[in-house]
């Protein structure tokens, strides 16, 4: 543990129970054991229990902005709860050096019958602010929420957006050393979202530590310097955003494929894609491109049985899952003829007009372009990083365009 470590998580595990009846039973038993000071067998799972967090270990340094991603039910929220100290680990230890501000559920401490003003004072006190601290920050809280007109209205008459705005304003006013955010900015209008993002950026500028859970990869990639991929309670990847997002995409892709394979319930496919790589022209495989470069997607396949006119398909997705481009051989009128054994097919983009960002490419072979299920699809997709110039514009594609000034 180095000097600027602010969160130190060491072999932390947390278990949950699937059945409510057993939850009650185990709850009573565990509480009784705790009271009597008896040791409990925390390391083994009882019936219907599973690890929500399984042996997670990592450190967060002061000033880092960490994005936490993973599929639903991966344990992201549980991990945030552990860091926030609202639940105890079953194994391992968490060490936190600083005041935590949690945006887990905005406005959780509000009482519907109290006015906005009263709620600011009360939830400020719940979050640990003293009387004078609240008095000093009151105006800025009201200002930030933009609710001057409604400050003496009971919050039960607030719209859900107003409620969240007030909650956010109070939560950030405690000036935390560590800010943890759980998907809470999904509500609120565009202007407020922008203000939230600005506030988070201001926190980053001020050297605060931030941990964000999100499914909006595009947004998180802009602010996070580091990402953690959580799946089934296990930390699968930890590192630079582009790499972690790529492994997340592969994970999701594998999941989708597994489901598809269950759905099709056929035996060994007649043809398989064995290999995929990206090249620029004739050079070696690479994953880093600039807009307007040449891109070649090289697909290696193996036909176990003779197959006539299979359709090859390539799809490009942006890191947040936006489907950017897809092409198949049938659309181009390319006929592959009868295939047996190993072979190769290349899709060439002479002018890659994607704008800067992270994308992933996957390939499949189908019996027709209208097939619901491909015959085979690569389990892993390939991540590609694109850089572009200012002149290419902003958005998804670098489209040729020009200004015509009327004289």
């Amino acid at each position: 543990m180095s000097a600027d470590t602010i969160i130190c998580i060491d072999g932390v595990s947390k278990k949950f129970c699937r059945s409510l009846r057993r939850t009650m039973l185990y709850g009573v038993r565990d509480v009784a054991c705790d009271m009597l000071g008896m040791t409990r067998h925390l390391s083994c799972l009882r019936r219907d229990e599973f690890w929500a967090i399984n042996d997670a270990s990592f450190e967060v340094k002061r000033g880092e902005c960490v994005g936490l991603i993973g599929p639903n039910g991966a344990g992201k929220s549980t991990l945030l709860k552990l860091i926030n100290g609202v639940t105890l680990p079953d194994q391992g230890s968490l060490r936190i050096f600083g005041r935590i501000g949690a945006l887990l559920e905005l406005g959780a401490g509000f009482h519907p019958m109290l006015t906005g003003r009263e709620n600011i004072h009360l939830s400020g006190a719940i979050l640990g602010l003293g009387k004078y601290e609240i008095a000093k920050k009151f105006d800025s809280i009201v200002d930030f929420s933009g609710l001057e007109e409604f400050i003496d209205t009971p919050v039960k008459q607030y719209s859900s957006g107003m409620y969240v705005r007030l909650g956010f304003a109070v939560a950030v006013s405690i000036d935390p050393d560590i800010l943890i955010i759980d998907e809470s900015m999904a509500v609120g209008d565009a202007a407020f979202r922008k203000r939230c993002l600005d506030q988070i950026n201001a926190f980053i500028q001020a050297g605060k530590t931030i941990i964000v859970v999100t499914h909006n990869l595009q947004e998180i990639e802009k602010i996070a310097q580091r990402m953690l991929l959580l799946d089934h309670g296990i930390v699968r990847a930890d590192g630079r955003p582009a790499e972690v997002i790529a492994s997340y995409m592969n994970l999701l892709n594998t999941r989708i494929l597994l489901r598809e394979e269950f759905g099709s319930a056929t035996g060994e496919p007649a043809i398989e894609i064995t290999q995929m790589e990206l090249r620029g022209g004739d050079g070696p495989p690479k994953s880093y491109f600039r807009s307007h470069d040449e891109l070649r997607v090289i697909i290696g396949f193996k036909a176990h049985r003779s197959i006539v006119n299979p359709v090859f398909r390539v799809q490009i997705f942006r890191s947040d899952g936006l489907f950017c481009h897809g092409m198949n051989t049938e659309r181009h009128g390319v006929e592959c003829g009868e295939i047996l054994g190993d072979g190769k097919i290349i899709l060439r983009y002479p002018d890659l007009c994607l704008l800067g960002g992270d994308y992933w490419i996957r390939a499949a072979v189908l019996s027709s372009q209208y097939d619901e299920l491909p015959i085979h699809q690569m389990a892993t997709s390939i991540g590609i990083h694109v850089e572009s110039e200012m002149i290419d514009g902003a958005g998804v594609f670098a489209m040729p365009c020009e200004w015509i000034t009327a004289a």
Partner: protein
Amino acid sequence: MDEIAQLRRAAIAPEIEPRRRPMDVVYTPRGVQRDGVGGWQIMFRELTESSRLIWLLMLRDISVRYRQSILGYIWAVVPQIATVAVFAFLHSSQVLPIGGTKIPYIAYSLWGISMWQLFAGCLTNCANSLTSSGSLVTKINFPREALVIGALGQPAFDFVVRLIPVVAVFIWCGVVPSWQSMFMPLLLVPIVLLALGLGFVLSIANLVIRDTANALGIALTIGMFLTPVLYPPPVRWPFYLINLLNPLSPLLGASQDLVAGGFLTQPEMFAAACIFSMGLFFGGWRAFRITILRVLGYA
């Protein structure tokens, strides 16, 4: 010399100035430690830190309770007057053989029921304090005992409101309380501590098993009739034994003694009940602290 003093001041000053939460928290399966402090020490520290929060929570409950009601605080006295009216009728029509009391029955029962409702109100409110706070308890990290202690505010306030009809009836019946009645607030302390100690345990139990609140309602109804609230302390077997084991009886009895005669008829029982309440309060508080974070996982 001056320089040293200045240096010392400079070294101390930044620590005093920002009153922030202490740093360095460690969470392990065994519990929480802050700045290397755990156990009783951190309990007292967090209690003093959250004193203002407790006060605000009390104010919140009191001010919110009757906000959307026309009769408002009148509702605080209605159940008490209704119960006493029924029992006074049963008593005067000789349907129930209730023994003689030192002061007129209506004053005796009204005072008794006010004390009982203070206890029952505190206990019910404490037991429900965590479940009724919803996501506040599971999503925000703060000393949760503030919620349980804060739940005392509203029943305590209701008690004060209920004193108005009590005083009115005392004047109407011509009862003059003894001068020792001014020690009454001291008597309320063990009653409230008893309710709080039990409330700590029941609030946790209610988080795990929701039957607790329902069972408590029935237990309190039965408890009211097992405690000499509406009748004088029993002297006959087996009610005598029940009364002897009921920690609330000597506490309520002492308050009635104080009003009527100015001296305690059972001082040793009263002392035992006081010690019992203290023990229950600290035991319940400790149990609450040990189990709360564990139980939130099951909430």
